[in-house]
Structures are given as C-alpha cells and as structure tokens.
C-alpha cells in the first residue's frame, strides 16, 4: 500500500478532471477562451500527475501493483475502492492523459458545429475521468462504473457534434456498448457469487479473484461466464462480428471524438481481456482462445477488405481499426507473454498512429469540407507538410519497422507460431499465415489512400482554393504523437520493459508452461558462445 502523497496520486490523476469540469460549468458560456484555458490547464495538471506516476514507478517490479490504495467502499457487497497500477496499466494511463491534452489543444480552433465550447470541453473532461479510472481500477464494480462513465460523454459527443447521420450512429454506439456491458456485469456478478477469497468472503477484488484461481467453478460455467465477458469486451474492441457500430461512430463523430475513440476507448476492451478475463478465468480462456484467434484473423482480413471498399477517407481509417485491433486480439489469443506484450504495445501504437490519422482526416475535412477520396488529390502539392505527415502515418500504420506499428504486429504474429501449451499448433499457424497476408492488404489500402489523397495534382474544384498547411495548434497537437511513433519504433524496449514483468507474472500464473521431464535446466547454449562475440586480440 502506498503512503502519503503516493496514496493520493492515482486518485488525483483520475478525479482532477472532475474539478476542472466543475469550474468549466461555473464559467458563463460566452467566456469561451477562459473555458478553453481552464480545460487545458486541467488536462495538463492531470497529465502532470500521470507523469509523476510514471517517474516514480518502480520499473524493477512492474508486476507489482504500485501506488495501491484499498479503502472500504460498499461494504455490503464487499466492493472496495481498490486502485493501483502495474506495468500493463501504466502505459495506458499515461497514454490516456496524454491524448486528452492533445485533443484539447487541437480543439482550440477546430470546434465542430454546433460549437458550444462549454459543453464540448465539459464532456471531454468527464470522458477523461472514465478513461483514467478504468485503467487504475482493481475492483470489478469500480472497473464497471468507470467503464460505463465513458459511454455517456461519447454518446453525446457523437449525437450532438457529429456528422449528418449522427443520431443513428450515436444510438447504435450506445446500444451496442450497453448490451455488452450488461453481459459483462452479469459475468462479474456470477464470479462474485461463485468465488470466495482467502477469508472465505465473496469479492469483486481483481487480485484476490486471480489469487483464488477458478475457485471451484465447473468448466462449463466458466465458459459461460467468460462468454459474457467476451461479448462485453469484444464489442468494445471491436471484434468481428460486433464491429458494425465502429465505422458509423467514427465516421459521424467529430475529429476529437474519433481520436479519443480510436486511441483510448477501443483499448478498454482489450485491456479488459488482459486485466480481467484471462487471469481470472484461465481455463475458459484456453478453451475460447482458438475462437478468439479465429475472430481476430477474420477481423484482420475482413477489416482490410472493408477498407478497400471505402470511398470516404475517415470511414477507411475506421475500418482499419477493425483490422489492426485484430492483431492485438491475435496476440492476446496466443495466451503467451510474447503475444500479450505485443498486444499492449499494439494498443499504444494503434492509439498513437490511428489517432494521428484521424487528426489528419479531420483537418482534410476542415479544409475541403469533404472526405470523398475521389474528389481529393494532390495534397502533397497544396499542403506538403500535411501530405508528408499522412504518408508517414500510412507507413507507420502498415507496420514499417522502425516505427511503432511494427512492434505491435510482428511479435503478435510471432507469438501464434507457438501459442500456449494445449492450443492447437496447426490452427494457430494457419492464423499466422492469414495475419501475415493481412499486412499486404494493409499496405494496399493505406497506399491507395495515400495515392488518392496525397499524390497526383489537385482536382479542378480545389485549384484556386487557398489551403492552409499544418498550423501552430496542429503542430502542437501532432508533433508529440509523431515523435512518440518514432521513439517507440526505434526503442521498443521502453514499452516492453514496462509491460514484460506484469505480463509474465500473469501468464506464468494463468497459463504455465509444462516443463518436460528429464530436460535439464542448465546447458542453455548448444555451443560455446565464444564464436558469437569475438574478442579480437589487439
């Protein structure tokens, strides 16, 4: 348990936006600049808190919950205010605080109709509470509440500030997620009633549930409970065939909404798998894994095909999320620490890259008032900087080594060559090949988009349009993302170092590798290492 300021830091990181929200609500609606300033400061302070967590995080013990706090909350159901971060949640928490700041900066002069700065920024602040909270919660009820808090602001953001088809999209988003949440809650309750912790009490506490093991639940019931969680999380990811809300939501959402949706909200689902579903119900996870893997590779190919059929740039990027999250889920389905490390990396990388792509799509729409790719073209001549950034992001998104996207994709594909013990090798190796084919399709749709939007010469209708290239607000919002894409691509160890310990502990507990009998632990090298690194006599 943490003491002093450290005991408060996660709470501060999560609830500071509430304070900002209260301030924003107190300011009259016409004082737009003040509202913006307060929001920006709030998110910056929040980011500061999350960076404090990052700085003081003990990277030698990433498996351990740090800054942990556990206070009695709802005694009657033994639900506690139990928060803490480990190597898996830390990157997500920082990413969430970080992306929110960039969204506020980008919004500065890009407010979508019907404007209403106050309401818009208030919703962003509320959203941040839910996002940050989900990543620190160590109690199922707490997790569920934060998970649900996210829903409303996004619903209104799409429904009020969205595109022409916003009502349909927002309702669809809401109903889908709610349906999933319901099943998820059902599963949480079932676990609560079925499992007892060390003191013989029913509990919602995640670490306690993990420690308790399956707690005597029969395999069949485990499968059903896992199924409920699976649907809840899979809808959020979204996995095929629960993905249809995503393209509509993304297409209609305002730019900032799309960015947050892609960068953080989708990750709540995959995070749920890693944090809750897999470790609490490992046996069921093993039975489900081939099916999760199947849906993941279907998603990879299907999402890519969906991209190829699009004429709308933003909708294309939305479908690409389905494909990319397929790689993340494939890594998770391998049930290996390699695959899950890759999945967490993929979550962050996809957040950065796809978030960036949505920013660009937003700016293209802001400039040309259309996202129809057949009407666009020659962006590189009219706005060369934006064109270059688009090309850069396309390359990052298709998994070019040296940029962040690669490290989510390649290890995930590698991990399914040899999934956890007990999973079928032929099945998973088939998935590997399909996933590898997916990388070609990814290159296809991204480069075709790049060709249509950036190459060529501007169409006649825009010949005389004066196009603003990337402006100061945009640089401020985008540059950190672009830098991070490069940094994580060149030094992937930054992420792997953080997640590895936590992931390894989880996997070792949930999916232990059978040690073959008679195989000695020593003699790790087949040959003396002397020939590998030669010390030359000088």
């Amino acid at each position, binding site marked *: 348990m943490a003491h002093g300021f450290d005991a408060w830091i996660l709470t501060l990181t999560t609830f500071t936006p509430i304070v900002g929200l209260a301030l924003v609500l107190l300011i009259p609606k016409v004082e737009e600049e003040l509202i913006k300033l307060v929001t920006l400061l709030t998110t910056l302070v929040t980011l500061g808190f999350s960076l404090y967590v990052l700085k003081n995080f003990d990277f030698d013990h990433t498996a351990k919950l740090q800054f942990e706090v556990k206070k009695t909350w709802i005694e009657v159901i033994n639900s506690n205010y139990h928060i803490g971060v480990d190597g898996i949640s830390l990157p997500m928490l920082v990413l969430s605080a970080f992306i929110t700041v960039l969204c506020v900066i980008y919004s500065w002069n890009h407010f979508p109709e019907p404007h209403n700065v106050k309401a818009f920024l208030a919703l962003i602040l509320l959203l941040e509470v839910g996002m940050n909270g989900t990543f620190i919660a160590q109690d199922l009820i707490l997790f569920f509440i934060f998970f649900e808090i996210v829903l409303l602001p996004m619903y209104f953001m799409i429904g009020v500030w969205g595109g022409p088809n916003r009502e349909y999209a927002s309702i669809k988003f809401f109903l889908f997620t709610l349906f999933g949440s*319901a099943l998820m809650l059902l599963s949480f309750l*079932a676990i609560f009633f*079925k499992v007892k912790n060390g003191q013989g009490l029913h509990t919602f506490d995640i670490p306690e549930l993990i420690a308790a093991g399956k707690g005597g639940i029969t395999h069949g019931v485990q499968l059903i409970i896992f199924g409920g969680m699976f649907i809840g999380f899979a809808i959020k990811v979204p996995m095929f065939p629960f993905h249809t809300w995503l393209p509509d939501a993304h297409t209609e959402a305002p730019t900032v909404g799309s960015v947050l949706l892609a960068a953080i909200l989708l990750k709540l689902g995959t995070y749920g798998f890693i944090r809750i579903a897999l470790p609490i119900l490992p046996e069921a996870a093993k039975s489900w894994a081939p099916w999760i893997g199947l849906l993941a590779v279907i998603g990879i190919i299907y999402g890519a095909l*969906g991209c190829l*059929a699009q004429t709308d740039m933003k909708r294309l990027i939305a479908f690409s999320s389905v494909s990319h999250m397929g790689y993340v889920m494939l890594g998770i389905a391998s049930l290996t620490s390699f695959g899950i490390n890759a999945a967490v990396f993929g979550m962050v990388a996809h957040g950065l890259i796809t978030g960036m792509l949505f920013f660009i799509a937003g700016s293209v729409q802001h400039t040309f008032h259309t996202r129809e790719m057949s009407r666009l073209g020659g962006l590189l001549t009219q706005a060369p900087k934006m064109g270059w950034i688009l090309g850069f992001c396309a390359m990052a998104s298709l998994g070019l080594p*040296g940029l962040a996207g690669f490290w989510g994709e390649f290890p995930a*594909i590698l991990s399914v060559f*040899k999934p956890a013990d007990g999973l079928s090798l032929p099945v998973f190796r088939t998935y590997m090949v399909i996933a590898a084919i997916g990388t070609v399709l990814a290159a296809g749709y991204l480069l075709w988009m790049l060709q249509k939007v950036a190459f060529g010469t501007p169409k006649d209708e825009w010949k005389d349009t004066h196009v603003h290239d990337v402006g100061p607000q945009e640089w401020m919002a985008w540059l950190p993302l672009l830098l991070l894409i490069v940094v994580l691509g060149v030094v992937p160890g930054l992420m792997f170092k953080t997640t590895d310990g936590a992931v390894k502990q989880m996997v070792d507990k949930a999916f232990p590798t059978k040690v073959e009998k008679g195989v000695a632990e020593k003699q790790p090298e*087949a040959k003396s290492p002397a020939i590998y690194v*030669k010390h030359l006599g000088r």
Partner: protein
Amino acid sequence: MLMNHFWFLDHAWLIPLIPAISYAVILLFGKRYGERAAWIGLASIGSAWVLALGTVVQWISHVNDSEGAEARGVVQSIGGMVRNIRLAAESKLHVEPIIHSTTWFQNNGFKLNVGIQIDGLAVMMLFVVTTISLLVHFYSTEYLKGDRRFNHYYAALSLFSASMLFLVVASSTLQLLAGWELVGLCSFMLIGHWWEEKPNSNAALKAFLTTRTGDIGLLTGVIMTFFVVQKYATMAGGKGTGSFDIMKVNEAAIGLGEHGGSKSLLFWCAAALLLAIMGKSGQFPLHTWLPDAMAGPTPVSALIHAATMVVAGVYLGARVYPIFYQGFHIAGGTINPMAAIGGATVIIGAGLAFVQNDIKKVLAYSTISQLGYMVMALGVGAWTAAIFHLFTHAFFKANLFLGAGSVSHSGANHSFDMKHDMGGLRKYMPKTFITFMIGTAALIGIPFTAGFFSKDEILAVAGENNFTFFKYLGLVGAVMTACYMTRCVYLTFFGEYRGGHADAHGAGHDVGHDVGHDTHAYVSDDHATPIHDDHAAHAAHDLHDAHDDHGHHGPHESNFPILAPLFFLSFMSIASGYLLSPMLKIEKFALWVEPHFGDDKHFNVFEPGVFKAIDPILAVAAGVVGMLLAYAFYWKKAYGENITERNGALRAGKNFLVNKYYLDVLYTDIIVGGVKGPIAQAAYWVNQNVIDNVLRYTGKGAAGAAQFVYKYIDQKGVDGVYNGSASGAGALGGLARKLQTGRVQLYAFTVLFGLGAIALLLVIFN
C-alpha cells in the same frame, strides 16, 4: 596508434549511420541550400565509401593473417584436381566474422540483439553499395538538375543507401527484416518521385505491394528462423531459447540438417524466405514490378538494379544459406525450388527483353534474368559463384543503366524509346557508346570481361554439382542474352538517327510527342498496356525536364558528371572479373568473401569451380550464336522486315511476350482488381446488409415485442387488473409511469437489474 587493424571493421556501424544522418539533414534543412543540398548527400556517401574501403583493406589483411603462410600456399596453388585434396583434408580454418551487438529489447527472457556482423560477404556488399551509390549521387547532380524536388530526391537517395547498408551489416534476421522494409520504402519514394503523374505512383505502389506480397514469406520466414534456433537448442538439451542472431540461425540450420532434426521446419522456413527473395529480387512470378519501376529517375534505376533493393533478396539467400541448403536438400543434386525458380527466371526474363522498345525495359528484364542466374546459382550450391556474379553484375548493370540515362538525357530528348527516338547515336556520343559496349560485352559474357568469369563460374559449378539441366538452362539464357543485347545496341547506336527532328516523324514530332503523352499521363489508369506505360513515362520525363536548357537540342555527348561514372564502371566491368577465375588460377574472391556459418565441417559450398576448357568454350559459343542470330534477324533482316507480323506462329509468340505472359493482367486486373473490387465490395455489402441487419431486425423485433407487451399485456392485461382493482392502483400506477418515462438510463438500469436477476438464478441453479 589511433586506428588499429580492426578499427574500420569494428566501426562499420558508422557506414549506414552517416547517410541516415544525411537524410535527416537534407530533409530538414535542404531547402536552405537549394541544389547545393546534393553536396551534403555526396559528402555523406563519400565518407561512407571511404569507411567501406577501410573495411575492405582491413578485412583482406585480416584474412591473409588468419590463413597463415601455409594455408595461403595451398590456396594459391589450387587448380584442377588439387581442390579435391583440399576437400578431403581437415576442414580449413575459417575466418570468423566480427560481431558487435547490443540488446535492442528484452521480452520474457528473450533478448533481441542488434548489431553488426562483418565478414567477407558484408564487406564486399559494403564496397559495392557505397561505390554504386556514390557514382549515382555524382551522376544525379547533372541528370536531375532543375528537378522539381531535387532535395527530396537526394534525401531519399541517402536514406536508400543507409537502409541497404543497415541491411548489409545486420547481425540478426529481424534487423535484416527492418533494413529490408526500409529499402522497400525508399524504392517506393524514388520510383514514385514524380508522383504528380498517375503512372508513376502506380508503379511505386506496384513495386511496394508486390514486394510486400513476398514479405509474407519474410515475416513468417524470419519468425521461423527464431524457432529453428529454439528447436536446435532444445535438441541439444537446453531450455530452448529462440534467437534471431544470424550466426545462431545458421548454426542451428546446419545442426538440424546434419543431425536429422526437424526437416519440415527447415523446409518451410526455406520456402517462406524464398518467397521473400522472389518478391524482392524480381523472381518469376513476382518479377512484374521491376520493369514498371523504370518510372523512377534513371540513376535510381541503376541503384535499384545494381546495388540495392533487388540484390537484397540474393543477399538474404547468401546470408542464411544453410537454411536453404538444408531445407531444400541442395546437396542432393536433384531439382529444388530455389534452382527451379532461378532457372525459370533466367529464361522468362530474357524472353521478355526481346520485345521491349524502351531501352530501360530491356535492361530491366535483363536484370531479372541475371538475378535468376544468381538465385539459380544459390539453388545449385554455387554460393561463391552467385555472390561473385552479384559483384560483377553490380558494375556492368550500373554501367548500362547510367549509359542508357546518358543516351536519353543527351541523345534522345529524354525519351527511352529505342525505335522512335534513337539509332545511330554512336556518331554523336562516342564516349557513351564505348562504355555502353563494354557493359554489353560484360553482360553477354565476351571473354575476359567480368561477366564472362562470373557466369562461367555459375555454369561450371552447376555442372560439377550434378545440376546438368541447370547448366544447359544457363547456356540457353546466355544465347538469349547475347541476342537481345545485340538488338538493343543495334537499335540504339547503329543505323540512322530517328529521334528529334531528324527522321520521318517530322518536325512536329516533339510537340506532338509532348502533348500526346501529357494527355496519356492524366487519363491513364490501372490499365496500363506496355506501350501506354512508356508514353506515360515520357510525359513524366518531359515534364520534369521542361526547364532543362539543352533538352531540345540535337543529340550530343553528355558532360563530365555523367561520363565520369561511366568510365569508372566500364573499368570495373572488366577488372572486377579478375578476382576469381579457376582458369587463371585466381581464387582471391572466394577466399576473401567466404563466410563462416558455424559448425561447417560437412558444409562446404564455397569452393570455386574446377577449370575445364569445355565450359568457357560452350559459353562463348552461346554468346556468338546469340549475337549472330540477332545480327541476322534485326541487323541484316535475313527474314525480311516484320517477320513477326507475317508469320502467325511468330506473331502469337510475340504478342504473348509483349503482353508479358499476361501476368500483369492476372495480377492487376484479376487478383488486385478482384480483391479491390468484387471481393472488398462483397465483404462491405455483407457488412452493411447482413451483419448490420441482424442488429436492425433484432432491434425491430425487440420494439415489436415491446409494442405487443405494452398493448396487450400491459394496457389490456395488467392495466385491466389494476383498473379492476381500485385499491393500490394509485401507487402502482406511479411506478408504472416512472418506468415508462422513456429515459434511456432508466431503461438501461432496468435491463441491468433484470440481467442481474438472471445471473443470480444462473448461479443459484448451477
């Protein structure tokens, strides 16, 4: 002393780093310097070249020291049957590579190392890549003068060189993969350099997507190399940690092969990596991107075809050769996928070179054919010969490409059409003519040029290793090579000048040319027929050179920056051959380049061939036959004009070739068109109409059920009961009203509550 004997070898990581920095500098600050930015690129690649030369010198002295006087004596006296004695003798002392690596990242006990592995193979490639790149940098100062994106061009050239050098020094297969993809990115940037025109960006996309298709193999193959190591380590009784380190991969491959370990894993690994080589090195049937890549500036073509990009595939094959050797049972001497693909490519590429009117496309198809020789050589166990051919080919092919650039730049108004815009140019550009002839001679394999030695070596070793079929296949390829190159030289340099204002096209030719092609460029689409392609390419060049002040003068000789590289490359087109020749008892190349793959007692594929007089005689005969055929057919018109038009069978054959075996139709229209069109559309249709409808109808069903419940149960049934009973109705009515207020949240709560109840039931009855 500041620099010891290993300074350059130990610091080889600087060689890719310098051009990489140059890339960033040119991209960020290049605008300030205008065309002087080229000098940043030149300076960087120049320093890289000096460092590479340093590694060459130090490596050679290192090898000579290691071999010791005795061993050296043996090696130099080798020739004829002496070689067999050496084979039988104890395994020779191998010069071990110099490896420096550091951990890139660590993941679950597995370490990914990144670093340099410097051995003879790497040193040779460092030399080739930096040399060709330096010449191309210099050549481009003149050739690209006034280009619309001069700085970007130089930035991309720098990155291209850096990526290729990074690939060359790689000490792990994953690092190799990274370099490989970056090389692909750079060729995408450079092929699409003039991206305003659709055909150019199409060509760039095609190159990227085709090689990316091969990369399915690279991704899975590299993954399998990791497990090959793991398998071997497990077999040896260890815990079985996988690794990407090239040394470990090779050693494991040899070990698994020798000790009867998992052959199927090795086979699939080899097959996957072969797919990667096919994509990158333009092997049939994934070669189709290479001719289209001519859309890029000509110096880039030289770079792509000689030193970077396409040789990356062959380099990969040479680097992890034990995988192929064991996976495909190359020692067995029977047909294997690698030899078969290479052999097929030799013939198929050469066949296509016959019908091209674009000089660059002739050279492009000849590259495909020559790469086929290299892959075939690897497939028949002629490792040294393959690498030696890569080495000599780099020089004479760069020579030919830059020569073609010179012809087009100064002699043919930036056209590459041999039939319409060239002819008789030997009178106008004698220096270019001589260098081009030397390059051609080397390509054909005229005795005592570089190509003669290297091609002979491949054929000799193929015969020795009992791959007789491939030896004769190679000879047939040699006939075809001689034939199409003679045609090419004839059309370009002999006969009457047909370009510009001098021929039947008349004075209006230039104008018509430009305008006509301009429209072509803009209306063109995915359906580029070969000729169409050429035209579009013209338009690009015409546009690009619009401000070139000497663009529309008559044909004349090129100036110094263009000629100097040609002279140097012509020299190398001959001289580079004298490093390996069993005939002349020279084995230096084999000695210097021979790598160390680990435990290779039983793994000896580096021996140069045994000299038999019949081999060069056959090869020369093949060349002479080819040239005579071309002379009779094209030059003297022995069968009259246009025989292909008059004879049905020949016409059909020509059409088949002109249409590139219809592979482009298959790929572009059927596969890509199919995926992009009907398949993607169908998937999307399913998405919109099936999956979405499940939701829609579920929603409708739910709404219907709700209507039913409300109308018949609530209003008539329950309400009826309520209405019937006067007491308590007020209280319950209030609750019912609350439930019907329509607030989503409240409903949601109800749903959740209900589901919670179900959960309870589930738990209780379980």
